[in-house]
């Protein structure tokens, strides 16, 4: 765990104190949230308020609408109906700046590893090589700092994306299957970094369809199927006693169509 000691203060919201006037900006609420593309409803009438702390995992079979939900929550796409708010505030650029998103296929700039992190820091008006190096050390990439980032392995690229996401000290991290195509060692490394960020007060929304991962990480679980929200509850409860037929089938690895 040496890498954690080296970087005290990285990767977490520094002051996760809820602001009483506006509510906790780490708590997502969506009401009547729906999305249709070309007349096809893809996300239907979702209503929920998520816990402002811990790791919420979004689960469901392929095509359930998990990625779309994440993008709706982060404001990358606009809903066709309903609304998203964080701590009672409608989505804004200011709110989005307090969030980081990590995509399933990491977006890697055509620059060195270090320059990838510098880019995000600079976008926030920060030039700080020691902070960048601390971030890279935190994700075990410091020795690769000056290599072209696109030559990194898949797992390393995703850790770079994590370092970039943490660079802005987000209050919320939205992660869309960040470990989907990685080897087990890379998966564990990334899970460690995510749990560390959560402990420092960052709210984590994490899409996965890996049950083992859900058991390891989840505090609570949102289960989606065909664009609808079927269950939301504590992880142990959902994993041991799912309430809906769809969730039972999903957990037993049966194809749900």
């Amino acid at each position, binding site marked *: 765990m040496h890498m954690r000691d080296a970087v005290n203060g990285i990767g977490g919201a520094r002051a996760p104190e809820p602001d009483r006037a506006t509510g906790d900006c780490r708590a997502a609420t969506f009401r009547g949230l729906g999305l249709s593309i070309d007349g096809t409803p893809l996300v239907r009438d979702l209503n929920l308020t998520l816990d402002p702390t811990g790791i919420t995992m979004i689960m469901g079979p392929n095509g359930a609408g998990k990625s779309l939900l994440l993008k709706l929550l*982060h404001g*990358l796409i606009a809903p066709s109906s309903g609304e998203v708010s964080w701590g009672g505030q409608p989505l804004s650029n200011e709110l989005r700046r307090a969030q980081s998103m990590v*995509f399933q296929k990491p*977006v890697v*700039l*055509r*620059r060195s590893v270090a320059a990838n992190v510098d880019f995000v820091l600079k976008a926030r008006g920060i030039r700080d090589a020691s902070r960048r190096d601390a971030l890279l050390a935190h994700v075990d990439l410091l020795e690769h700092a000056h290599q072209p980032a696109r030559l990194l392995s898949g797992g390393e690229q995703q850790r770079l994306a994590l370092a970039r996401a943490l660079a802005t000290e987000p209050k919320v991290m939205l992660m869309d299957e960040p470990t989907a195509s990685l080897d087990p060692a890379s998966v564990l490394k990334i899970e460690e970094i995510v749990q560390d960020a959560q402990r420092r007060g960052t709210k984590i929304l994490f899409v996965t369809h890996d049950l083992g991962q859900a058991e390891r990480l989840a505090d609570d679980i949102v289960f989606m199927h065909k664009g609808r929200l079927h269950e939301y509850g504590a992880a142990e409860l959902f994993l041991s006693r799912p309430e809906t037929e769809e969730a039972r089938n999903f957990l037993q690895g049966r194809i749900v169509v």
Partner: protein
Amino acid sequence: MQDLGEAFRLALSLVLSGDADLVEIVSLSLRVSLTATGAACLIGLPLGALVAITRFRGRNAVLILVNALMGLPPVVVGLIVYLHLSRAGPLGFLGLLYTPTAMIIAQTILITPIIMALSRQVLEDLHAEYAEQFRSLVLSRRQQVAALIWDARFSLLTVGLAGFGRAVAEVGAVMIVGGNIDHLTRVMTTAIALETSRGDLALALGLGLVLMVIALGVNAMVQSLRMTAVRHAYA
């Protein structure tokens, strides 16, 4: 008409001895075409980037127009610039006709659409990959354009080289607006045309050799840029 072998021998000696006329012509050529390439990049790159990352009404019409302008025949560009700069034209008072500036203007017009169209394509492809990340980071349009141009630097350099290659090799536009005046507006292509028709094959061949080396050099640079980009996975 000189004997061809003799002409070639003379041409080589002109090139190798650094003949003053030849050097003057080559350097004017490079000055005009490099300046035009620089100007075309200053205009075409930001425009290409803007079109690449924005959606607006009439965007398709703009794309079609720019693509059509890429095929502008140099003589037509020369003619249009001539009509504007000639004494009777709207810009005649500037007295630019038959100056290197007129040639730079004509070549800039000729290759700006090329720079814009090619860079638009390069930047649009890259933007498709980066767009969500950029939106997540709440970047301004300026920051986005700057990042795209930097990350596409290798491809954009080859775009610039393509523009330069076209400018330095064209003869129609600079002939019309420059007039091929000795010691003033004579560049490689116009000199080759003139000297060939006058039967002075040595100078024509010498300039032809230099032009060919430049064209091959540009191609070699494009290739090595590509290879560098691929080696760093920056392509």
